[in-house]
């Protein structure tokens, strides 16, 4: 049982939790911690904006499945991180964000760089703490990690006053964290599992609807096994892409507002919807009263508040996805009445219908000669990386095209801000991912608007040798909003025309990176190939068709069957 300063104890806690990389920005309120971190084996990445630090921790967490860590100073440092904390909250990403705070005696006094960050982040963190008593510090940090990674993961903020960092604390030996008020349930109820399995056997038009929970739970293998065993068509949310192989014939692709025609039609006509780790978000359901009107609904989710929140569920299973899917697989394996071939044959008429929809309206775009189509760029990136790259996206049209046209076959290969939809997420997330997986090719698919939001992190990438690639789909517009204005506001492009955009090739050079540009269709492949072969950060500026739309599209307030098509 050692005595040490609070700051030293924090560093020791982080090391004990297995943290090898963290992201932050210094300031007066965290200068002690920064001093103690110099000797630590932990790589303390210096970013250029605190939002970048938390997005990097987020990208790191999504890639590894571990808790991402960020360290921000008080006041503006903390508030600069709020958007990124909310981003992680909406997508249930495990983070511990440490913020410095003014000394306890000054709290509430409008001190220099003081802000009530616990108050500000209460609605957008899974939990948060202000450590006023140095004796509680070590216990709090350990609890923070526990809360962040268990149950439904989420960001936890710990606000630490400067005098607490300087106080003498006793570093007690680590014991398993036990919290009376927080005991998430992982094991599925066997009775519910049996009900769900029996329902699956009876269904004639089933659909597996999977979301981010499958990825967070590391359940892709179990999910894939179940899907194939029961010959189920699989529709994925944006957050669930990669949870089931996208190139598998059972895959219907993404569903929802910009999902495939076949996936939306399948859900609309299904008689059994098996929702796994998904939350019936409005982007997926469209008009609620028209969503899956004929389907019995099974919902597997670790968070009880997600169940029957938007849509009434028939067979709820509050449990971990991985354990539940394993239990279901086991039930079918042990069931002597179950025969996989018979099951597949039974569903053949349903698959005939699904194939018809897929053939009638596949994901498509028009080829217009020399003009670069953004969908083509994404297809080429997918092809030239063999579907093996880690792709991050920004938000808007770039995000949707990346989700539609890159073939994701594995989990943790698409990092995108689905819940909050944060522009500026992609590049720092790519840096975080690259630092977690230096061996991987990491590409941020961006728009010219989004990329400017955290462009300063190019310096961070250079400083730490995180050699990411950025594909900018450049149309000088804020594309997604422009599309809505084209469809619903008589093409009145109010506030969506970026008349001034930097020369990205020159900007890349200014940061010591490489800039490449493609202006015609035949230049696309050589640019991508060169970027992938270059041992540096590469910004690729693709001058795309200015007024291209993302289709299919379910307009707001419409049923998911009322899709606008190309």
């Amino acid at each position: 049982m050692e005595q040490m300063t609070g700051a030293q104890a924090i560093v020791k806690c982080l090391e004990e939790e297995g943290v090898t990389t963290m992201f932050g920005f210094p300031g007066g309120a965290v200068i002690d911690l920064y001093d103690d971190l110099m000797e630590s084996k932990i790589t303390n990445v210096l970013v250029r904006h605190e939002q970048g630090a938390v997005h990097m921790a987020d990208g790191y967490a999504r890639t590894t499945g571990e808790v991402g860590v960020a360290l921000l100073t008080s006041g503006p440092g903390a508030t600069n991180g709020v958007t990124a904390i909310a981003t992680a909250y909406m997508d249930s990403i495990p983070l511990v964000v440490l913020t410095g705070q003014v000394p306890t005696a000054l709290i509430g006094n409008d001190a220099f760089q003081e802000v009530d960050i616990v108050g500000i982040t209460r609605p957008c963190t899974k939990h948060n703490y202000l450590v006023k008593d140095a004796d509680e510090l070590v216990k709090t940090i350990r609890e923070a990690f526990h809360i962040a990674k268990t149950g439904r993961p989420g960001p936890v903020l710990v606000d630490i006053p400067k005098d607490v960092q300087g106080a003498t604390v006793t570093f007690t030996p680590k014991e398993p964290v036990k919290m009376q008020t927080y005991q998430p349930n992982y094991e599925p109820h066997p009775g519910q599992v049996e009900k769900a399995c029996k329902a699956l056997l009876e269904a004639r038009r089933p659909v597996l609807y999977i979301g981010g929970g499958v990825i967070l739970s590391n359940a892709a293998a179990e999910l894939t096994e179940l899907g194939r065993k029961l010959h189920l068509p699989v529709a994925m949310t944006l957050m669930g892409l990669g949870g089931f192989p996208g190139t598998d014939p059972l895959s219907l692709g993404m569903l929802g507002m910009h999902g495939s025609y076949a996936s939306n039609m399948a859900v609309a006509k299904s008689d059994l919807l098996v929702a796994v780790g998904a939350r019936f978000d409005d982007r997926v359901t469209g008009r609620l009263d028209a969503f899956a009107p004929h389907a019995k609904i099974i919902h597997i989710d670790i968070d009880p508040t997600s169940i029957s929140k938007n849509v009434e569920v028939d067979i709820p299973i509050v449990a971990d996805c991985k354990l539940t899917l394993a239990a279901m697989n086991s039930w079918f394996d042990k069931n002597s009445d179950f025969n996989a071939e018979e099951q597949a044959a039974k569903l053949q008429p349903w698959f005939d219908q699904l194939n018809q929809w897929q053939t009638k309206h596949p994901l498509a775009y028009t080829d217009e000669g020399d003009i670069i189509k953004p969908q083509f760029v994404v297809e080429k990136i997918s092809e030239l990386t063999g579907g093996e790259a880690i792709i991050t996206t920004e938000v808007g049209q770039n995000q949707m095209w990346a989700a539609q046209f890159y073939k994701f076959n594995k989990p943790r290969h698409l990092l995108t801000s689905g819940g909050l939809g944060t522009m500026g997420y992609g590049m720092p997330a790519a840096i975080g991912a690259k630092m977690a997986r230096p061996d991987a090719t990491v590409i941020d698919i961006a728009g010219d608007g989004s990329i400017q939001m955290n462009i300063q992190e190019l310096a961070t990438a250079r400083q730490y040798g995180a050699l990411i690639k950025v594909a900018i789909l450049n149309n000088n517009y804020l594309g997604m909003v422009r599309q809505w204005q084209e469809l619903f506001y008589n093409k009145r492009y109010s506030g969506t025309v970026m008349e001034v955009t930097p020369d990205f090739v020159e900007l890349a050079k200014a940061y010591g990176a490489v800039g490449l540009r493609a202006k015609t269709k035949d230049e696309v492949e050589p640019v991508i190939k060169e970027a992938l072969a270059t041992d540096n950060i590469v910004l690729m500026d693709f001058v795309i068709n200015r007024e291209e739309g993302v289709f299919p599209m379910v307009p707001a307030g419409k049923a998911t069957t009322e899709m606008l098509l190309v």
Partner: protein
Amino acid sequence: MKHTLSVLLQNKPGALSRVTGLFSGRGFNIESLCVAETIEPKVSCLTLVTRGEDAIIEQITKQLHKLIDVIKVNDISEGEYVEREMVLIRVRAEAHTRAEVLRVIDIFRGKVVDVSPTSYAVEITGPESKIKAVIDILRPIGIKEIIRTGTIAMPRAPKK
């Protein structure tokens, strides 16, 4: 439908804020709220009266359970319960109405806690229906001010 929820909370700074923030953030309604320490000083009990359909009440209960500071949530209104609220009312009491006011207070078993030449302040305790009744009766006489505590409630003990 009115529901009375009894929430056991860790008695820590910010715990109450989390509950009220949850309600305002998600657009749930709080009709009244009363909170204080229990027999265990580390635990407070919050009695909250809210209104909504069954699906909303279910969401509220689940969301409350999700909060790390919340120990237990009980929808007391599901069973038999004892409900009480205290109200302090400053009633206009002119020469010709003073006696009537005192008679009404007596009928409702209230107490006069303050006297002035033109008013009485009275203290009444009881379930919401009684509080509503006394306010309705006193209103024509003239109410200057009402301060209510909000409801507290406790489930009735099993009779067997």
